[in-house]
């Protein structure tokens, strides 16, 4: 069987696209990945998604979007995408040893947490190093933790951790945060959060788990050590684009877009954080998913006429 469209990714962009393509009666397959739902699955209360005046839990929002996509007939593959062959039509998408054919493809693989890439970090993921305060925060009851980053996600991680930890130190390499004013205000007013600006981690130390870190003062160049139980990394995201052969990327690894939703391959479209280096919001990803789905519909009609 040949699908009309295969969507790779199950965040707001992919699921919104699926809602639109299925409602347009296009035969739609969505490769969700094992960890489906995207970045919002690692959050708590989402307060800026319109329609939820009291906010909604990120994982609940994604479960709702998924239900909505299923309701209109989206087929799901709950496994990780492994390879795509865009060299001939129909396109071939592989998931492990299974493969699926489609007339068109929407790449909506989003972005994953970026790590610091400093010594001692990788091997201690799950042993004190984390990227998900709502997931792991409870293991840091009455302990001291560091959050690294200066954007909204760093602020959220720090605030979530105050519910468990004794003290949260927010470390940022620049002199000021780029987070939204409302999030910055909440952080600054929280007595459990200590702010360290112009500072960066250079090494994470410990035998079995995180025990201390080395912190460099970016103004003096002085490196000091600080005992700590956990390090939460929230320094931005990397687009999940490297596994697509033949698709043009920009210098930062984002899929290069032509006219908002086209890649360099005819019939392969893109939506959401995998190409969006600017807004990176759940609602913008959903918006991209919608407009890309409409363009796919138009493209398929043009092909058959």
């Amino acid at each position: 069987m040949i699908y009309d469209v295969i969507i790779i990714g199950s965040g707001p962009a992919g699921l919104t696209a699926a809602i639109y393509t299925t409602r347009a009666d296009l035969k739609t397959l969505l490769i969700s990945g094992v960890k489906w739902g995207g970045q919002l699955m690692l959050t708590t209360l989402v307060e800026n998604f319109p329609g939820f005046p009291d906010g909604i839990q990120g994982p609940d929002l994604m479960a709702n979007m998924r239900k909505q996509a299923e309701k209109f007939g989206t087929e799901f593959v709950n496994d990780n995408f492994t390879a795509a062959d865009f060299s001939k039509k129909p396109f071939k998408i592989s998931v492990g040893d299974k493969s699926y054919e489609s007339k068109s493809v929407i790449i909506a693989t989003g972005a994953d947490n970026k790590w610091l890439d400093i010594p001692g970090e990788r091997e201690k993921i799950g042993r004190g190093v984390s990227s998900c305060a709502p997931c792991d925060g409870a293991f840091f009851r009455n302990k001291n933790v560091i959050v690294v980053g200066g954007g909204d996600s760093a602020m959220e991680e720090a605030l979530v951790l105050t519910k468990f930890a004794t003290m949260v130190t927010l470390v940022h390499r620049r002199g000021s945060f780029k987070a939204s004013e409302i999030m910055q205000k909440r952080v600054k007013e929280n007595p459990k959060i200590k702010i360290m600006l112009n500072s960066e981690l250079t090494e994470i130390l410990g035998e079995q788990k995180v025990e201390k870190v080395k912190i460099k003062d970016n103004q003096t160049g002085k490196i000091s050590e600080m005992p700590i139980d956990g390090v939460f990394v929230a320094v931005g995201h990397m687009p999940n684009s490297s596994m697509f052969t033949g698709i043009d990327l920009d210098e930062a690894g984002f899929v290069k877009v032509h006219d908002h939703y086209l890649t360099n391959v005819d019939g392969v479209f893109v939506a959401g954080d995998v190409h969006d280096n600017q807004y990176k919001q759940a609602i913008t990803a959903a918006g991209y998913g919608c407009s890309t789905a409409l363009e796919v519909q138009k493209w398929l009609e043009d092909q058959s006429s």
Partner: protein
Amino acid sequence: MADLNLTDQDFEAQVLKSDTPVLVDFWAEWCHPCRIVGPIIEELAGEYAGKLKVGKVDVDKNQVANNYGIMSIPSVLLFKNGKVVATLVGAQSKDSYKKEIDTVLGN
């Protein structure tokens, strides 16, 4: 079966003194990625019935996770002869779990 809810009280008897290797899924109610792993583990329990014991530990109700330095869930640990022989942190694909199980079982 994955319905085997392990506790601090029976962990030693069920896991450490088990004749067959044991897979233990450390989880909690509030952990969303755990809900993704749960059904995969149940499938594995069925597929490896008789060869592998499969159980889960609610980290909110039990302290035993501390003995194994668990600071992130879901964490899936494989035990053989009372010792940890494999650790998988975070939600993984069914194949990744199978690969580790097969290695432990010597398949």
